[in-house]
Each structure stands twice: as C-alpha cells, then as structure tokens.
C-alpha cells in the first residue's frame, strides 16, 4: 500500500490534470509522456508510409484506421473512468457485448429505430456498470475481483442469450442507418459542391465521448470529486464527498462508455454479434497507461488516452500492412508497450534528477 502511495506522489506531476499543485511542477516538457507519444506517433507514421506508401491511402488505410481508433479510444475512456478511482474494470468487453446484445434485441424484436436502440444499449451498460459499482462500494471488495467475477458471469450469459434469441452468433437484422455508419464518410454527404472530409460517421461519437470525459474531469464537480476519491478516499470522505456514490457513478459511466464502444464496433463490423468486446481488455489498458494514467488513481490523462489509443491502432495497422502475422503483431505490440513504459520511466527519472539539481 505504501508503495502505491509513494508512486502516486512521485508520479503525480507527469499527469496532466492533477488537482492544482501548489508549487510549480519541476518536470521539464520533454518528460511529459504525451510529448514522447506524439514524437513516437509521427515517427511511426513516417516509417510506415515510407515502407508502404499505401499507408497514406485514404480508402485503404486512413478511413478504416479512423473507425478503429474511434472504437478503441472509447474503450480506453471506459477503463479511464475507473482508473481515475484506482479501480479496474475487467468486464469492460463483456459490458460492451451485453449492451450490443440489448441494442440488437431492441431492433430485432421490437423494431425500434437506431437512436432508441443505442439509448437502450447504453442504459444497459450504465446499469451493468452501476451494478459493479454498487457491489464494490457497498462491500468494499476489490474492484478487480468484482468485475472479474462479473466478466465470468456475463461471458456465460451472453452466449446463452445469443443462442436463445439468434442463431448463436449474431442478429441477422440491423437497424436502418447501421450500413451508413459502417461505410459512409462525410465525403458522401454534399451540400451543393461542397462535400465533407473523408471522415467515417462513427468518429463524431468518439469525439463527443472524449470531450465529455475531458470536461467532466476538468470542470465538473462530479469529475473532480471522483479524482479526489481516487487520490485519497479517506480524505475525500472527511471533506464531505459521498465517496460511495462517486465510486458507483464512476463505474456506471465506465459501463456507459463500454456500451458506446460496443455500439461503435458493431457499426464497424456491420452486425450485433456475440464476439463484440472479446478483444477489448488489453486495448482498454493500453490507451490510458501509454498516455500516462496511473493505476493508482487520482489522476487521469484524457489527451494521453487519445494519443495512446491512436498509437496502438497505428501500430496494428502498420504491421498489418507490412503483412506481419497475428503472432508477430502481438509480440511487437507487447514490446512497444514495454519499451514505451520503460522510456517513460527513464525520462521521468532523468527529469527528477534535473529537478533535484535545480
């Protein structure tokens, strides 16, 4: 526990939105993880496009890349919501899958239009997250255990539900507008001669999520109180913050974002299927952690999450274009993660030394 506390204190200045530090941060700009990420990102884009010029091909690469980033960015934000508390959400993928199931069912059985389906699915996600949050805040059991058990339970439930209500794999029907979300970009919509940019229709969803989460943690009372709860629960409690409610709310919002991510993936794949969310767990941690968010809680970096998620997807896409096999892909993603984190650590230590000398 003490290790955690010291980690928390020493690493705090690198986080972008700490609760207004009293003394100015001594960490120089180059020790900021987001600067490193940006440099790495630019470097990789240059590398990939020089190796494979098709990396800059709009239709082949850039449009699908944007759609992928949108999905995994929202997944990262879902994890970020609970990382702010120092908690984890191991069920992030399964919450997305349950929500996607609810969306599919709402259309398949009730024929509700797309926005209503989305709303129902997000409510299901919100409910699942709230359930996890409720158990965690009422019993004080570690969030890892609760969400892991929830994940176990949902894996079983989802398969049963899909075999009961569909052919077992996916809903055969999809609401009107799903196809447009999947294939269209704003370039397909023109007002007179002026057409939009080559941006897929799913991107605005992610942008709204980023802005909402960013504003929540920076300006909203709820967000600040969640961060304070994550930083020091006892102190927060003593300052009159209803910490149990904040824990519940953070988990509920995590479920909500997971539901949105499930919807975006379903839109990208073109179907509400049982395998949605299966690959969410690793990326959900990759984005925030690469972006400099700690597991200790109390500090988050939304911009870092954006960069982290983008970097991960750029690497996937680039290695894919270079025709790496799946196993090599995993190998390199893991190595990049380790390297990025170690470099971050090295930068941090150097910065601390310089700060101490100054």
């Amino acid at each position: 526990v003490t290790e955690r506390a010291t980690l928390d204190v020493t690493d705090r200045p690198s986080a972008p939105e700490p609760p207004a530090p009293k003394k100015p941060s001594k960490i120089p700009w180059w020790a900021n993880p987001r600067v490193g990420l940006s440099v790495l990102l630019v470097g990789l884009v240059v590398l990939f496009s020089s190796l494979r010029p098709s990396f800059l091909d709009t239709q082949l690469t850039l449009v699908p890349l944007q759609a992928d980033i949108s999905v995994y960015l929202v997944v990262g934000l879902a994890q970020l919501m609970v990382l702010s508390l120092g908690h984890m959400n191991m069920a992030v993928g399964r919450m997305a899958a349950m929500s996607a199931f609810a969306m599919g069912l709402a259309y398949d059985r009730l024929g509700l239009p797309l926005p209503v389906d989305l709303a129902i699915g997000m409510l299901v996600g919100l409910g699942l997250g709230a359930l996890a949050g409720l158990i965690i805040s009422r019993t004080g059991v570690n969030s890892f255990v609760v969400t892991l058990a929830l994940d176990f339970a949902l894996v079983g439930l989802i398969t049963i539900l899909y075999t009961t209500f569909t052919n077992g794999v996916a809903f055969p029907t999809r609401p009107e507008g799903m196809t447009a979300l999947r294939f269209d970009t704003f370039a397909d919509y023109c007002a007179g001669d002026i057409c939009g940019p080559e941006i897929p229709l799913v991107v605005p969803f992610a942008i709204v999520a980023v802005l909402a989460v960013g504003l929540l943690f920076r300006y909203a009372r709820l967000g600040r109180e969640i961060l304070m709860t994550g930083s020091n629960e006892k102190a927060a409690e003593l300052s009159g913050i209803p910490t149990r409610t904040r824990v519940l709310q953070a988990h509920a919002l995590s479920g909500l974002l997971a539901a949105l991510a499930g919807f975006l993936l379903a839109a990208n794949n073109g179907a509400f299927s049982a395998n949605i969310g299966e690959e969410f767990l690793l990326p959900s941690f990759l984005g925030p952690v690469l972006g400099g968010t700690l597991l200790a809680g109390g500090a988050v970096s939304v911009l870092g999450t954006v960069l982290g998620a983008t970097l991960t997807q750029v690497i996937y896409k680039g290695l894919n274009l270079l025709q790496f096999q799946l196993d090599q892909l995993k190998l390199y993603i893991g190595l990049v993660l380790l390297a990025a984190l170690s470099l971050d650590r090295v930068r941090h230590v150097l910065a601390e030394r310089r700060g101490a000398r100054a």
Partner: protein
Amino acid sequence: MTTQTLPSLVPTNGRIRSIVRAPEFSLAIIAMVGFVALAIASNGNLLTRGTLDAFFRFLAVPVVIGLSQMVVLGIGQMNLSVGVLTGYCAMVAAWMMVDLGVPAVVAVLGALVLGLVVGVVNGLLVVFTRINGFIVTLATMTIIEGLRYGVHGPDTYQGYSPSLRAFGRASILGLPVVFLLALAVAGIVAFFFARTVTGRKLLATGGSPFAARLSGISNDRSIVIAHAISGLLAGVAAVITVAASGSVNSSIGDDLLLPSFAAPIIGGVALTGGVVSVLGTCLAAFLVRLVDVMQAQFDINRRSIDLIVGAVVLGAVLIGTLRQKLLRRST
C-alpha cells in the same frame, strides 16, 4: 483428503475454535457437501472409477495454476501471463520432443527452466522499470502469446514421448499421478510460505512493503522471487498439461487466466498481499472442478458454467467479507 497432505495449514495450536473460524473450514464443508450432493445426484456415477479418475486428473492443472497466481498475489501483485506462459512452456516442451527429438526428461526440464526464466524476467522488469506488475505482465502476456503461436503456428503437436503420456495416464491407489504431483507441489508451496525464511519474507513484503524494508527485507528480491516461483509453477502446469492431454496446440492456456484468479480469490487470498492460503486455493480449485463435472454430468450448456463460476466467485468473496465483519463484531 487434501487437508491431510497440507499439515502446515492446520492451525498449530490445534484449538477447534480456530479451525472452525478459519475461512478454509467453510470452504471445506461446501466442497464436501457439493461432492456428496453431486455423487448422489449423478446416481453414484461420479464415484465410478473412470469418472473419479478424470475428475482428479483434470484437477491437477487448476490447482497448480491457482498456486502460481497465489504466490504473486501474496506480494500484492498480479501475474496476467500465467495462462499463456503455461501454453508457451507446453508448446516448447512438445516442440523439443517432436521436432528436436530430445528425451522426455530433457523436454520436461526445458519447460520448467523456461517458466522459471520468464518468471524471473517478469520480476526483473517490475523491479527495474518500477511499473505496476499488472501492466508489466499484461505486456509480457501479449509478447508470450505471440511467442506461443510462433512455436508451431496453428498446428497441433501429438504423438510425443509414450513414456510421458504413460506418466500422465498412470494412477497410484486409484489417484492419478499428475494429481498427486499437484498435491506435492501444493505441499511444497505451503511449506515454503509457512516454514522458510524466504517465504516469510515474501509475505512480509506483501503485507507492508514499508515495514518489510524497515526490517531489512529486500522488497525487490521478494518481487523477483515471487514472479520466478509463479513462472516455475506455470512450467509445472505445462508439464502436467503435456503429459495428461495427448496433444497440444497454441490455444493451450487461453482458458486458464480467469481460473487462476478464481481459485485463490475464492480460497480467501487477499489481493492486497500478505496473505496466502494453499489449502483454500486447492479447495477452491476443487469446487470449480465440481461445477465443471456437474456440467458434463447433466449436459448443461458449456457457457453457463462461466455464469455459475462467476456467481460462485462473487458469492464466496461476499460471504468472506460478511464473515469477517461478523467475527469482528462478535469479538
């Protein structure tokens, strides 16, 4: 029967009260009741030689993998790479026997050493980068997944060493040898934590790193040792897998990560570190195996097992918390 093989977990002062109060006691009762109930419900089918043999044979890996996770939980960290590491070691052992043609003994040693080495690397990475163990093992899990697939692609190894297969099939006094091996490993781990200086130091580090440091214990060494043992145990699980199942492919270990957490957590091991329970972990693995057999006996949907296990994990944890609260109130 597991109780007798793990003497160090029975409270040494031997008072009945403390035994009844131990969290393992209720777990043992539940396990026994569950076993008897399942035996009756299956019309005694569970007690036939073949079923009982399979029951214990496939209990070996969950026990060892649960212990592998437990060791790292003991110092307050997690090892997400246990499952894929088991698969990787199993694949390498099979590769050594089939493609290199080395004797089974060398392949077994190779798998154990590989597990140990990867564990040490995990530990060193945690120590040197000062990154949270969860993240480090998340990264190494991804890397090992790639390596595991790289051994033989999507293909399956089979028809390796008949002697190792015979070892996997053998039974002594009606109990599979691999299960006895798992019990022996559990006994060693229990002895390690109860009676050796290194084991006590690990628990001290897990309980309070700060206090441990002040008492002259190297937390860094504890971290490396814990991860090394965890890796070694994953290697043992790999050997059991290779011996007990006639073929291995690159999907081995994918379904081990969640059970590896389920067993220690149901068994009462705290995620915050400092507490381990070998007996609890073994009993919990036994319980999960019961649920598994129940599925096979009554032909329940395969996936509803996950639902039940999830509910059991959550229920066990909630009961444990409740129990502690009640005990605290009564004293």
